[in-house]
């Protein structure tokens, strides 16, 4: 099965790329609308150094913004998930804030923090903390009282309960939210770079698109996707170690 699975994770993308290529050639889609994978590959290869230069910046800002988002999001989630007052007063505001496209906020950040790394980190952070907070809060709010009672009967305080039960129990959902959040962190960095930066995949993309070099734009997209997948693989490994207890599926008949 494992080998079969590994095959799947390679086979499907390859199939998709093939279909894409075929469609581009078959329907004669002009490359400035949707470049064929082959063109993207060429653009990627021809601009390897430039792409490396920009993508390393994007990766840096994304990872920093994301790291801050994990800490802040988890704390916020703990607050919202363990206090009804915080829940009812913060949740609507958070939803409101997150419904606002951050494209509109980045210019303000630029005026305050200048062009470049800081707004990108902040945007990555702003986009990605919310899913973490929501899932942690839900994890805490749905703790079975029976488990909580185990700790309460020992005279544990709220913090103990969060640490010994809340966090471990919501770990599978924390990891779920990390998968959502890392993608948003990338989007945030790139958007900010598109709006204000001299370096980063976003910059590369605007520059390329200003010059109508669409296959280079897509080469940038491919690199972002690849970095996203790389981050995912890292989480998946950590997740497998830390949440094995929660996914002990059965192996017989239905399921698996």
């Amino acid at each position, binding site marked *: 099965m494992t080998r079969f699975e590994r095959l799947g994770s390679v086979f499907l993308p390859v199939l998709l790329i093939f279909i894409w290529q075929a469609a581009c050639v078959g329907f004669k889609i002009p490359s*400035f609308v949707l470049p064929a994978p082959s063109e993207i590959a060429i653009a990627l290869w021809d601009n390897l150094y430039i792409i490396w230069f920009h993508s390393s910046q994007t990766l840096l800002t994304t990872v920093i913004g994301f790291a801050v988002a994990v800490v802040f999001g988890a704390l916020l989630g703990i607050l919202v998930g363990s206090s009804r007052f915080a829940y009812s007063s913060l949740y609507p505001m958070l939803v409101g804030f997150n419904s606002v496209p951050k494209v509109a906020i980045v210019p303000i950040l630029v005026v305050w923090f200048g062009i470049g790394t800081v707004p990108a980190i902040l945007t990555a952070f702003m986009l990605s903390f919310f899913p973490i907070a929501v899932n942690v809060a839900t994890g805490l709010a749905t703790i079975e009282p029976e488990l909580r009672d185990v700790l309460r009967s020992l005279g544990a305080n709220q913090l103990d309960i969060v640490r010994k039960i809340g966090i471990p129990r919501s770990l599978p959902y924390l990891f779920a939210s990390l998968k959502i959040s890392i993608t948003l962190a990338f989007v945030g960095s790139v958007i900010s770079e598109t709006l204000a930066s001299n370096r980063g995949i976003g910059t590369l993309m605007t*520059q390329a698109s200003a010059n109508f070099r669409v296959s280079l734009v897509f080469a940038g997209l491919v690199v972002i996707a690849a970095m996203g997948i790389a981050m995912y693989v890292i989480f998946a490994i950590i997740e497998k170690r830390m949440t094995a207890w929660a996914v002990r599926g059965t192996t017989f008949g239905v399921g698996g």
Partner: protein
Amino acid sequence: QDLKPVKFSLDWTLQGNHAIWGLALKNKYFEQNGLKVSMDRGYGSGDTVVKIAAGAYDIGFTDVNSVIKFNAENPDRTVLAFYQVFDKTPNSIITLKKSGITKPADLAGKKIGAPESDSSRMMFGAFAKANSIDPASINWVTMAPNLRETMLVQGQVEAISGFSSTSVFNLISAGVPQDDIVVMSYADNGLDLYGSVLVAMPDYIAKNPDIIKGFVKATISGTVDLLKDPAAGMTAMQEIEPMFDTKLETARLAFLMDKGVLKSPAFDKNGLGYVDPARMDLTIKTNSEVYKVAAPAAEKVYTTEFLPPASERMPPK
């Protein structure tokens, strides 16, 4: 020696004409004038004006029409132009031969694509008036700047508005033969307006006259170098930005010189940065009519105080 730091914003991603400052940097004209300039790409002329007004940048390169508009909307926080870079606005309506549109009058009742923020679109009222078209008959389709040319090629719109220097080359990149592209420039069709300028806040200018003077001098030196040897300018730009497409930008620069934007009879005669007060008044008046605001006073829009004598700013022959 202690160089004065200056934050300088362009109007757009690096393009051929920006080599003026690329050369000023490379040939140390800024340093010679006591300045240490950091140059950033811009995100549209309107955005550059806001960044100057907000203090995010000290000096900006932006469309004078955007300056007039911003000043009219924000009378208590105006920005001031101090050097005319483009003698002519590249504002244009661009279309393809297959649309059958050959002159402005043909535009009546047509679908034109452009971003809301496009200055050509915003100035279209004046263009329509000068060419006796009913602006209400135009069916505007709003889209992001880099979608314009695609939409035009795909036939979803019949014309687009924008800077000729941008759209023509995007169309060429999209595989349209240059002969199929029809450009109706505003300047050549009854709207003889000025183009992009250098701007700063009035209080910054008042506090740092030396910086402004030095910046103007360096700009003139850069322009002269660029007009003399465009290829050197392109090399300088590529050193700043590895992605700079020299071939494309050489063509764009030639286009700007050829169309009388960067290189013009007026500049040749009166020196670079020359402003004809009558033409500037027309520019201001046209804008105020289009936006239905009171025309800002000319001295609130531009100053020629920092121009060196004409003899020191003659373009190469």
